[in-house]
């Protein structure tokens, strides 16, 4: 039993989750504060017969995992802001060609090389719109190591289910902090494996012809079937097409497969949310401070709760509107200039009651930071 309890960094919890989900190929380029993910996988992956490659840069790493995924592997790369910027072009290719992959971004201060060793949550919108064109994407996050583990497993599962890149938006504070992790027994958390075509060798296989349920079975590239993969708009054979029907059909498909499943993809936690009049919406390490405050305020009888977001994209608009319907005030606690706050404002019925509680100096937002703004909002002065 005790060997299943670990005391590890958040980055190591991510590695444990990836291994549990069945990762067998990792390509990356080290960058603070994500480096431990590559470091630990460089040891662990070969031990279980997987492949670890340190590439020449982040662009090549992203391309390598896309290729490996096509050949049938469960793949991941890990980086931070500057590397995540470099990966955007290939990320768009994976969206377009519908290639399952997991990209971890352990966020640090930006823009540019920014504040390498300090915490930030400034890449939320980059995860959504960093690559060009009307694509859709899934992004998950977590505030503690048990959830880092669970969300990493989920990321692999969602990538396979929807044939899409999934971004894990962690941050420096959770990535580097150490705390308890209990690794579940094999089978305790369900694993989604690759949906492969049942067509045999020599039978015509259409890589982009959906089944009745809308899913696209894959065929390991280089195996039984020959097919084309491209970043251009393509038909069911995977060949380039600019036929307006094909173009709009594919773009609708890329968006619908994710946006129509928001309710299936949305992940969140409620802390003291029953009858809450003041709601703190937060995610990642910021949520730890928000929960700290709400715990103390509830002990004093104040009706305060925390809505902790674990999926950020597709944005859980409907869920947030419903949860905040009776709130006197909604405070979005995050470490950026209001990237999630803007989407919360757009989601709720009374946007004038939504406030930003942020910190952008590289320090973890503290319970005191939240408390002082709360006093102002509640009309009690500073």
């Amino acid at each position: 039993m005790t060997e299943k309890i670990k005391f590890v960094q958040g980055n190591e919890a991510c590695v444990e989750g990836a291994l549990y989900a069945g990762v067998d190929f990792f390509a990356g380029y080290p960058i603070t504060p994500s480096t431990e993910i590559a470091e630990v996988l460089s040891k662990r992956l070969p031990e279980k017969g997987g492949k670890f490659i340190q590439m020449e840069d982040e662009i090549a790493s992203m391309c390598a995992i896309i290729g490996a995924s096509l050949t049938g592997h469960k793949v991941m790369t890990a980086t931070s802001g500057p590397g995540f910027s470099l990966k955007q072009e290939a990320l768009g290719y994976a969206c377009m060609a519908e290639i399952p992959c997991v990209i971890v971004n352990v966020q640090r201060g930006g823009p540019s090389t920014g504040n390498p060793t300090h915490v930030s949550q400034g890449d939320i919108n980059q995860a959504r719109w960093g690559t060009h064109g009307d694509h859709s994407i899934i992004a998950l996050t977590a505030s503690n190591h048990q959830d880092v583990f669970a969300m990493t497993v989920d990321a692999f599962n969602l990538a396979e289910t929807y044939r899409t890149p999934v971004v894990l938006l962690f941050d420096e504070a959770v990535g580097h902090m150490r705390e308890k992790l209990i690794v579940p027994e094999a089978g305790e958390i369900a694993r989604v494996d690759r949906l492969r075509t049942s067509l045999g060798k020599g039978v015509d296989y259409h890589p982009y012809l959906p089944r009745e349920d809308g899913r696209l079975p894959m065929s390991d590239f280089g195996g039984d079937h020959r097919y084309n993969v491209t970043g251009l708009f393509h038909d069911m054979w995977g060949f380039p097409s600019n036929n307006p029907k094909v173009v709009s059909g594919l773009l609708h498909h890329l968006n619908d497969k994710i946006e129509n499943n928001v309710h299936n993809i949305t992940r969140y936690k409620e802390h003291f949310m029953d009858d809450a009049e003041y709601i703190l919406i937060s995610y990642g390490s910021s949520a730890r401070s928000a929960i700290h405050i709400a715990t103390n305020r509830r002990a004093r009888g104040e009706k305060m709760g925390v809505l902790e977001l674990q999926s950020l994209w597709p944005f859980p608009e409907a869920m947030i509107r419903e949860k905040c319907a009776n709130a006197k005030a909604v405070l979005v606690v995050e470490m950026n200039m209001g990237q999630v706050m803007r989407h919360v404002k757009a989601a709720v019925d009374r946007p004038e009651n939504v406030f930003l509680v942020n910190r952008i100096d590289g320090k973890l937002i503290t319970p005191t930071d939240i408390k002082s703004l709360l006093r102002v909002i509640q009309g009690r002065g500073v």
Partner: protein
Amino acid sequence: MKRTRLIFSGSGGQGVITAAIILAEAAVIHEGKNATQSQSYGAAARGGSTRSDVIISDEDIMFPEVNQANTLVCLTQESYNTYKELVRPGGIVITDSRFVTTTKKVDAKQIELPMYQTVMDKIGKPIVFNVCMLGAVLGVTEILKPPSVMDVLKSRVPEDFIEMNRKALDLGMDLGALRAV
């Protein structure tokens, strides 16, 4: 025990961060408690002030940083000067008497221990200075059972060095026990 907050500080290379990790790991793995360990990373690896925060609790721990430490450990003058205000009024400050001269302006029980000197006299290897410090913390605060910490050391230290670490831990505990609170 409700919640204990500790800050370990010193200069890079003294092993204060490793000591913090060992203590927190012992609490989680061997005593079934919750613990967090965090540290501020900078560009420098050696020299300069380093600090690591540990919180040990029976309950969930949310905010992982320590602002009011129950126990503050300072192994250099610079870290003492920088962090002495972070001890909770009435808390404990443990310093090494060779490296730190304390001031009276701190509202806490200040315990100066000749940890470095004892390690050099009895073992002769500065590498276990941090483990002696950890022993002193256990001796003074009785926050965890010493075998829990020893078990973690056994899992992290090469076999040939386990006895040296055990001795350093014992030396620290003896020093600390004399000043137990």
